[in-house]
């Protein structure tokens, strides 16, 4: 362990350590970030939701997109598993179905970054998944 000798040392260390509490800070003010919920019920896990979630977390970080990725229960769209809900700050949430890693990548690049719509949106009469 190196000692902190200067303020620059501290700032550098702070940057490195930021991830330690990032998740908690974002959770406290999630509304300011892109919020992604991954449907992780049994059917979701079976259809690869876990891998999608891992991919999202990694990819978002690599691309410097501040986002909060959480998991949620069955979204009620078993037919379209894995499903994810994406909510950009100040916008209505949108649910995507049949999300694999490739699709996830597309959602990040097109919808999250550019605001372009992507195929696979599950429309209307869905219920917000917050409350199962």
């Amino acid at each position, binding site marked *: 362990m190196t000692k902190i000798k200067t303020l620059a040392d501290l700032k550098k260390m702070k940057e490195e350590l930021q991830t330690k509490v990032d998740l908690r800070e974002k959770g*406290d003010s999630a509304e300011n970030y892109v919020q992604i919920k991954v449907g992780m019920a049994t059917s979701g896990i079976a259809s690869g939701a876990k891998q999608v979630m891992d991919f999202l977390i990694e990819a978002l970080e690599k691309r410097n997109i501040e986002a909060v990725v959480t998991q949620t229960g069955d979204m009620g769209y078993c037919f379209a598993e894995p499903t994810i809900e994406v909510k950009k700050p100040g916008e209505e949430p949108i649910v995507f179905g049949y999300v694999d890693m490739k699709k996830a990548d597309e959602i990040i690049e097109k919808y999250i970054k550019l605001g372009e719509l992507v195929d696979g949106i599950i429309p209307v009469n869905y219920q917000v998944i917050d409350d199962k």
Partner: protein
Amino acid sequence: MTKYKMHLLVCGGTGCRASASDSVVEHLKMELENKGLQDEIQVVMTGCFGFCEKGPIVKVSPDNTFYVHVKPEDSKEIIEEHIIKGRKVTRLLYQDPEKKEAITDSKHMDFYKKQIRIALRNCGFIDPENVEEYIAREGYMALGKCLTEMTPQDVIKEIKESGLRGRGGGGFPTGLKWEIASKNQADQKYVVCNADEGDPGAFMDRSVLEGDPHAVLEAMAICGYAIGATKGLIYIRAEYPLAIKRLKIAIDQAREYGLLGKKIFAANFDFDIELRYGAGAFVCGEETSLIHSMEGLRGEPTIKPPFPAEKGYLGKPSNVNNVETFASVPVIIRKGANWFNKIGTEKSKGTKVFALAGKINNVGLIEVPMGTTLREVIYEIGGGIKGGKKFKAVQTGGPSGGCLTEKHLDTPIDFDNLIAAGSMMGSGGMIVMDEDNCMVSVAKFFLDFTVEESCGKCSPCRIGNKRLHELLDRITKGQGTMDDLVRLRNMSNVIKDTSLCGLGQTSPNPVLSTLDNFYDEYLAHVKDHKCPAGECKDLMKYFIIAENCVGCTACARACPVGAITGEKKEAHFINSETCIKCGACMERCKFDAIIIK
């Protein structure tokens, strides 16, 4: 570094630990390992969340799930359901007491909605035993800023402009205190942190030290830089083992990281901190007593002046601040005086931590902006009175504060308003009383404490408080006279007027404020020998309602002193002269024929 997907924050405050929260941590970790998730989900033992009523608490981040009353055996379900399947465990969620529905996001809890956390910002958020988590939260940035960008005068100016006032009770402007200490020249000066929290039911300082010890260390170093001191001392009561443990860890880590010690941030500034233990005498929270106790002398106050800023520890200029005051300092330096002084009221800036206790639903620790009303605190954050009973009074300022009533509920809380209302801020205790509390007994209860805790140095406090207590005791037994009420007030006024230190100068407050606000209750005790709230046992009498009594004789047989007479199958009668009020008859009666009045 492992990138965790979720954090499980488990409260490691003294309260939750007493309910086995450390075992919850172990079980959670074990379950995670069983599922091979230990690298994806992090379990963190944090400081206090404040919502002690509902402990142990487990908060899941980032989805803000707030689990209450978590038992170790609940761990399995949390991991299997919530973590793996993403299904929140509804039975463990906090329920809104009004709407009776589970709240899934802690941000929607009334308890937290109105709070602004400055002193408590890291409590329940970081692992207090890990300096890196503190650094990740911009820890020691304020100290770095002071040492590299600010002169000591700048620091003092910033604190002065922030309007920060001492959170230990007195409300003395912190910046001014620092300025006085900085101007007194000496070969050695000291920064002293007063962690001798002694008010019954108060635990804000303990929570800060348990939950965010580095904030206090950082602030003390900042203060040291500002006043020209190289040594810091934390006077902490030995009854706070967990806070002591975490402070020791924090001090070691800060030294290891070079945040305490020589040439901090390459500046020409050395600072180190040591702990001093108190034996738990209430009066040692008074700064001169505290200093004497640290010097190994009897813990009792001396007359000020000289103030500690002139002649303090070992006769050297010393600046004494309370834990919560210090905890607010780093944020002020980082965010600036102008950020801080926009919060609060005209003369009381920032936030204040209160310990809610008594007949209130949400017992716990809260931090609200100065100027929040008592009503907001009691009814919104505190969730109202327990059991839907009627609010009667709230005692603020610890044992020597005053009892405020319904008419004060909309008073914005700040230093000056509370004093004007006949109470005080104190260290932030808030004890809520309902219709079942007898105000004479309440006054007596607080006097019990001050009589016990008086150091005995000055006569009014040593003897006067004892006499007050004796009078109150007589009144609660129905032996008081109208003359006694006059004497009670005179004695209280003289004790306030003549006592040496803050303890005696405020100890009669509960008596005076109840005399002012609840004189009728005193009169009822003295004139009618009745206790309207039904709390004073000696004034209660047992009666038999003749209509309900079937003459089964069960009560008469149960009475240990033969106070109940009556023929079989006829209504019985209790001789109140003989009755010792043990209640045995009432327990035995199957016909609800016996009442207390």
